[in-house]
């Protein structure tokens, strides 16, 4: 008797909402460009918020493992990926609000963005290597086009092309890894791979998969595409890539090694440790010599990938919890920083060079006024947070990662991260130095046809700056969730009983 599989629609509801909305947005363009321009952003925002909400509600329910014939695992980790991606997606919608008044690509823009978010959700919820690959391709292809969407600008085209080629390479690594693993384990389902015998083929497959994830997370030594792509892409897309893609890749990596390769921990840990050290070094030293704000943030994201990897290496409850908390904090500060970059870009009508920020902290950051002052302050706070100076969330995120590293016996890695942070001060503080301690630059170029009111973005950036402190005060909530996630994945060595030392 052939049993028809039960399809658990709820398990993929976040992706369904996004996909349906993505198709709807695309259909708007058929009717009229005007409708598309006016309605697409709102639809996209609503879809992201809905997806976030569904993922959040699933987070508090029992996990749905092995839905869709083992293709989708809608557990805590998956829903956290979905929430991070949807949150970053919503922020990106805000960033690009009314950005394209002139051209007629609004529908494509928002539709692709929604598909990218959906792809990331699927990527994070993958129960088998097949879903993993489909998710990866879904968001990658969307991102290639999004990077190149400002087709009249050469850097944007260049960025899209570079990303396409490099991304194609990483996809091929992923596919090759999948085929090797399939050859060794005889299955594509992660849990079945986990039960397979350890073999050289399996290890080789894992290494290939690791390469693909490193690419997507923009961690050294496979980071070299990131500064160019981040620089050329529209800034809102850069913000999305720097946060959502990185989060999805890191968390998918955690799922992969936790469920499919639980026996091989000793094999991948040294590799990832090497990646972490390389990322921290390359990211921090590379950022020191940058003159463009976006490139600086690109290198900063590379170094943060390195810090976050420490938590992955540390494994255990504390490591996973630290990575999750770190990702939330990192996304908040990075989105805030990019919001400020966009504000500045629109105010001056040009790419943000660090030297052009001279003296802008005292009110002229975004054309003057109280909001200019607030924006400058927000930038300073976010830079301190990225640098990991207390009492910001950036500090506590780093503290958690170092803590998990030391706990797992990787004290040397913690020292490397600490020294890397000192180097990091060199460029994060330079922003503050330039903004507050140098004399203002000559009269700034007037913006060409840029929207005057950016209350939207300024409020968003200020909210991120405040959110950094809120995250610091509220760390327990995220850590608790992280430990819960670790238990679900079977990572924790000893899952404590309920209420053993939970905060009342």
């Amino acid at each position, binding site marked *: 008797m052939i049993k028809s599989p039960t399809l658990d629609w709820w398990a993929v509801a976040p992706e369904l909402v996004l996909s349906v909305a993505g198709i709807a947005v695309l259909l708007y363009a058929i009717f009229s460009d005007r409708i598309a321009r006016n309605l697409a952003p709102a639809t996209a925002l609503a879809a992201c918020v809905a997806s976030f909400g569904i993922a959040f509600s699933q987070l508090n329910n029992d996990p749905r493992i092995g839905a869709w014939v083992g293709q989708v695992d809608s557990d805590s980790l998956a829903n956290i990926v979905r929430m991070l991606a949807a949150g970053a997606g919503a922020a990106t919608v805000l960033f690009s609000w009314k950005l394209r008044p002139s051209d007629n690509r609004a529908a494509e823009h928002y539709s692709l963005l929604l598909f990218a978010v959906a792809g990331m959700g699927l990527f994070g919820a993958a129960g088998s290597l097949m879903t993993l690959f489909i998710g990866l391709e879904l968001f990658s292809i969307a991102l290639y086009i999004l990077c190149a969407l400002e087709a009249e600008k050469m850097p944007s085209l260049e960025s899209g092309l570079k990303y396409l080629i490099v991304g194609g390479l990483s996809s091929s690594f992923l596919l090759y890894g999948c085929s090797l693993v399939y050859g060794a384990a005889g299955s594509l389902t992660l849990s079945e791979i986990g039960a397979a015998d350890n073999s050289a083929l399996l290890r080789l497959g894992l290494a290939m998969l690791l390469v693909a994830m490193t690419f997507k997370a923009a961690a050294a030594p496979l980071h070299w595409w990131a500064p160019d792509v981040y620089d050329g892409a529209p800034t809102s897309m850069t913000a999305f890539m720097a946060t959502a893609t990185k989060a999805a890749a890191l968390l998918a990596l955690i799922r992969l090694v936790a469920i499919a390769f639980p026996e091989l921990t000793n094999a991948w840990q040294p590799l990832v440790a090497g990646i972490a050290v390389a990322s921290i070094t390359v990211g921090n030293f590379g950022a020191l010599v940058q003159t463009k704000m976006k490139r600086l943030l690109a290198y900063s994201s590379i170094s943060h990938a390195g810090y976050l990897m420490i938590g992955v290496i540390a494994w255990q409850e504390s490591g996973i919890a630290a990575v999750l908390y770190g990702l939330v904090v990192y996304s908040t500060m990075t989105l805030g920083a990019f919001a400020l970059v966009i504000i500045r870009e629109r105010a001056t009508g040009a790419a943000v060079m660090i030297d052009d920020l001279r003296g802008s902290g005292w009110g002229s950051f975004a054309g003057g006024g109280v909001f200019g002052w607030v924006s400058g302050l927000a930038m300073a706070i976010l830079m301190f947070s990225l640098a990991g100076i207390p009492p910001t969330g950036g500090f506590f995120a*780093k503290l958690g990662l170092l803590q998990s590293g030391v706990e797992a016996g990787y004290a040397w890695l913690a020292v490397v991260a600490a020294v890397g942070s000192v180097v990091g001060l060199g460029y994060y503080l330079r922003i503050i130095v330039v903004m507050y301690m140098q004399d203002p630059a000559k009269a700034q170029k007037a913006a060409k046809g840029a929207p005057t009111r950016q209350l939207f973005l300024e409020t968003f950036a200020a909210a991120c700056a405040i959110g950094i402190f809120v995250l610091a005060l509220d760390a327990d909530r995220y850590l608790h969730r992280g430990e819960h996630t670790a238990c679900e994945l079977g990572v924790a060595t000893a899952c404590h009983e309920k209420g053993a030392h939970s905060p009342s």
Partner: protein
Amino acid sequence: MGELSIQLLLLCIPLIGGVLALYLGETMKSARAVTVTSAGIALAQSTVLVCSWLIIRGGEESSISEAFKPLQPEEYSLGIAQWGIAFNLKIDAATLWLSALTVVVVFCAALFTAYAKRERPGVFVAAMWWSAAALIGLFMARDLVVFYVFFELMLIPLFLLVGVWGGPERIRATMTMFIYTLLGSLPMLVAVVAVGDVGRDALATMKSGDGSWQPAAFDLDFLYSVAATDASAFPSWILALFIFAFAVKAPLVPFHGWLPLAYRTAPAEVSAVLSGLVSKAAMVGMLLVVLPLFPHQLAGGWGLGLTVWALVSLVYGAICAFRQSDARGVVAYSSIAQMGLIVLGLSVAQGAVGLQGVAGSYLQAINHGLISAALFLLVGIVEVRTGSGELSVLGRIAQNRPVITTTALFLAMIALAVPGANTFAGEFLILSSVFSAGWQFDWLLGAVAGATVVFAALYALRLLSSVMHNPDDVEEARTGTVTFGGDLSHRELVFLAPLLVAILALSVWPNAIRGGMERAEFRSAATSERLVAKGESAHEAGSEEGLLPKDSPNAEDHR
């Protein structure tokens, strides 16, 4: 939370007052608004300090005998429970006097800001009060992570103060200072984490006994009990990282590279805060962390090494101070020497031996805070009036100006520790404890340390004579280059007076802060065998659920 209220008040008054100063100073664009706000903050802060002094005094006996008790989970509401961090602040006599010092120095510095007519006085003074808040938080911290947070936090306002309002080389100075200190303190973060890891392990073994009571892993009082149970609980590499961080902050000699540049470039009142207060963070760190957590290492070699290091720093600083060509340079290097002396007093205390060195260091920290602040402000006055601090162009200020002459002479006498001065009391305690440290060549170390008092006289008198007087034979070369104007005005005396009065009071009666000195001694000996044996400490080695002696009358209260 009720326990925390006074501490939170001490923390919030300068924070909120700073915001007020910023708002008033920027909207009214007047220095007077800033002055009035600062006076208000200082007044409120002093009131709270007096109140807490009365409380501590009232319960002095009990607060000493109940010793160190870690907080219970229900006693703190802030913090990160998952990591064992509790927002744990306690105020005792040792904290109190350091906080009072902070309030006095920052208040005087804020008045100087108004006097020197800085740009954006609101932001300037706000930043100073915020650094004061961070410092007071640091002094009160009884949780290692909270300590670390304040340790770095106080740098942010100072980073801005030096970088925005400093002299021509301000950006280099502020970046050097910030990165240098963080080069020390970020590895310390690893050490903090490692200490917490040891604490967590200790908690894990403790929990098997009785899980009903569980302090936070980073609670210092709890960590003391771990160190008391097992003297070598914390490995030496952690100690090395801590000492490195404090050596950069203090600074001790090879790591003092940031100091001369920062002290010279910063506005004079910021230099006063830097040398008077910020350097004390290193002392407090030694007192809170190094001495009680690593008794084993300090007794075996590390203590002697630290003593020699501090001595080298002391001698080097004193010699360099004598060679400087500008007034600020002299005060800056004398600060290095004084910090060497303070660390010297701490480093000879191993366990219960040489505790009077700790008392001396504590007294000397207060003294040095007052004196170096006063000296920097005085130098600041000279700079504001003449536009230069170079010794080669200064001179003959004493002529017909009795008030400034008396002030300068008074400060110089105190700085070189004439008998009767408060510094004499501090140095005496430190030197005598070096002589009785119990090492083979302790008399030699003591003799070298004693000789530097002579160096202090050399640089203090040289500074005095080249600014105030001038030998006649070189007079022609110097006169006419700068003009000083009249004697010290009332306005200038207003911000010098609190410091001078405090110095005078401490000289007459150094015992006033005896409570603080005793508390500092007590804290540094938290894990010493003497206290454990007497059952005074909060723990008893081998006690099953640790931490609280069963026969202690206080034990019942903590359940």
